[in-house]
């Protein structure tokens, strides 16, 4: 199997003047293509730092990080920006959509930074929105969408460049149970289409949808196991009583 991600003694130390914080202590891990990994751990365990480094937002203090076989731990700011643009899609807890910008334009945002032409951009963005089930809402503004819909726009944005991985940082943290499961359903269906997904969560229920669970504590991996039979979000949704979605659309 080819390693999509592999790290070698990945270490991150924050220097706070008088003392140092070891956020990550020599992490060695590899993640294959088409995995669905949930990373768990209490706050301060280093999972966010790990995520930031995987997402090329931050650089390790020591050790290496190989993405698709390329050591990118020494890339400069512009190099990392290019990797983020082409290979990584982010989904955040707080959605992080640009307000007063339509759903379609939010999804187009990553395409602005790799020189795609207008026609191409529009086409790709519409396709990504339909993949998350938001056809017909292209011209809605974030404040006209429910939380679940906003998160789906964010997922569409992360998809639009055909990234190697989608990194989701507590994507269900601001959503109710039902909407959370809906979002996980989208992740599962994307994963079935071959997209690698890594998500951070502190909810066991959410982690149960993933195929592999990794737990962090004090900058070290304390648990790394394959989930024998991940929950199927689709089935779970059917078992839930139908709720009238309070759409603001």
């Amino acid at each position, binding site marked *: 199997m080819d390693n999509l991600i592999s790290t070698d003694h990945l270490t991150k130390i924050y220097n706070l003047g008088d003392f140092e914080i070891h956020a990550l202590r020599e992490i060695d891990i590899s993640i294959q293509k088409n995995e669905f990994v949930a990373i768990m751990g209490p706050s301060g365990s280093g999972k966010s730092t790990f995520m*930031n480094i995987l997402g090329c937002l931050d650089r390790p203090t020591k050790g290496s990080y190989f993405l698709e076989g390329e050591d990118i731990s020494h890339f400069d*700011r*512009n190099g990392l*920006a290019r990797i*983020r643009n082409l290979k990584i899609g982010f989904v955040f807890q707080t959605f992080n959509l640009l307000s007063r910008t339509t759903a379609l334009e939010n999804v187009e945002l990553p395409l602005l930074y790799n020189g795609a032409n207008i026609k191409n951009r529009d086409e790709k963005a519409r396709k990504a929105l339909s993949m998350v089930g938001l056809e017909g809402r292209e011209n809605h503004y974030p404040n006209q969408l429910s939380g679940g819909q906003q998160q789906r726009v964010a997922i569409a944005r992360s998809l639009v460049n055909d990234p190697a991985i989608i990194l989701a940082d507590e994507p269900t943290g601001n959503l109710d149970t039902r909407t959370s499961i809906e979002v996980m359903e989208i992740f599962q269906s994307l994963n079935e289409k071959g997209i690698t997904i890594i998500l951070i969560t502190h909810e066991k229920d959410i982690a149960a949808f993933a195929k592999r669970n990794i737990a962090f504590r004090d900058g070290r991996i304390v648990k790394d196991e394959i989930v024998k039979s991940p929950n199927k979000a689709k089935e779970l949704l059917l078992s839930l009583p139908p709720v009238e979605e309070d759409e603001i659309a």
Partner: protein
Amino acid sequence: MRYLQIIRIAYRALNRNKMRSSLTMLGIIIGVGAVIAMVGIGQGAKKMVDAQIASLGDNLLTIFPGSHTAGGVHGGAGTVTRLTEDDAKAITQFCPAITKISPVVRTNAQVVAGNLNWGTSVEGYSPDFVSIRSWPVASGTFFTDQDVRGATKVCVLGKTIVDNLFPDQDPVGQIIRIKKLPFRVIGVMSSKGQNAFGRDQDDLVLVPYTTAQKKLMGVTYVNSIIASANDRTEIDLASDQITQLLRQRHRIQTGEADDFTVRSQLDIASVAGSTSQVMTILLGAIASVSLIVGGIGIMNIMLVSVTERTREIGIRMAVGAKGKDILTQFLVESIVLSLFGGIIGILLGVISSKIISGVLSWPIYISPPAVAIAFFFSGFVGIFFGFYPARKASMLDPIEALRYE
């Protein structure tokens, strides 16, 4: 088109805060407007002075008798009266760069017509006066060489004299008395108005210089000589030729100072020109200060905007915007702001200059280069004052920026 996209994003960002954007622009609008109006006033003044100097006559040279020096004591200009009619004749004969020449004989006299009288300047010239001063006759004729040879008692009146002595009749053909001698009026000069120093140029009576010398003053000298060079480029040459000739005629030894002065139109024009140039620069500089203050306003608001939109910057960076992309975005925003302000400022400047020139009747000249410079300068202000905030935005750490509340 990528640039179009960037400009659209900038326009939208500015449109989001209409009040703030327009107040920021107001600084630039006032700055550019002030520069346009002030430089317009300065250049208008320069144009007016230039026009007045040109109205004295093209390629004009004036020869004044110089200072008299005795035993190391220098008298002032005109302390010797050594210029004569013969000097003038010699200049016509021996200075090829000179086409027209006229001696000037000047006196003050009371002029009487019927029961009206008027104290004025009576000036004697040759018929070349008309072309040297480029000052045409409005009605009647000017005196001729024959009048000069015969020292006839004819005169041509300035407009002011006509207004005072012949308020409601045609003066041509009438008789006026100058120093009790009867003169026949043969013409009236066109009106020339005030000169650059506020003197009424139409308040004079013109007579043949021989008449002035023999009949009115009883002298043989002339006060000065005016001449015109063939061409603007030959003014210096003409001046040299006159100087050489007069030194010879006045038997001035090498090393001794001239007893006359040759002054050209260009000398006067350059002095007056540089005066109004200084004024233009001064006004422009004062106005530029407000443009710079406007620029600081832009910088201030862009800094606020960068802080406010930290999260947006974080999002853009997370999806792959490079520092350069963020820098461009904010820089374009401030340039759009300042150029747009610049355009409105130019309009405001032009309109306010028109109002000033209308109300105060000041001459105002809006030169296209001044407008272009103001426009580009406002763009430059946008770049200069927008760069620091834009750079600050581009240097943000994406993680910090995403976390910003």
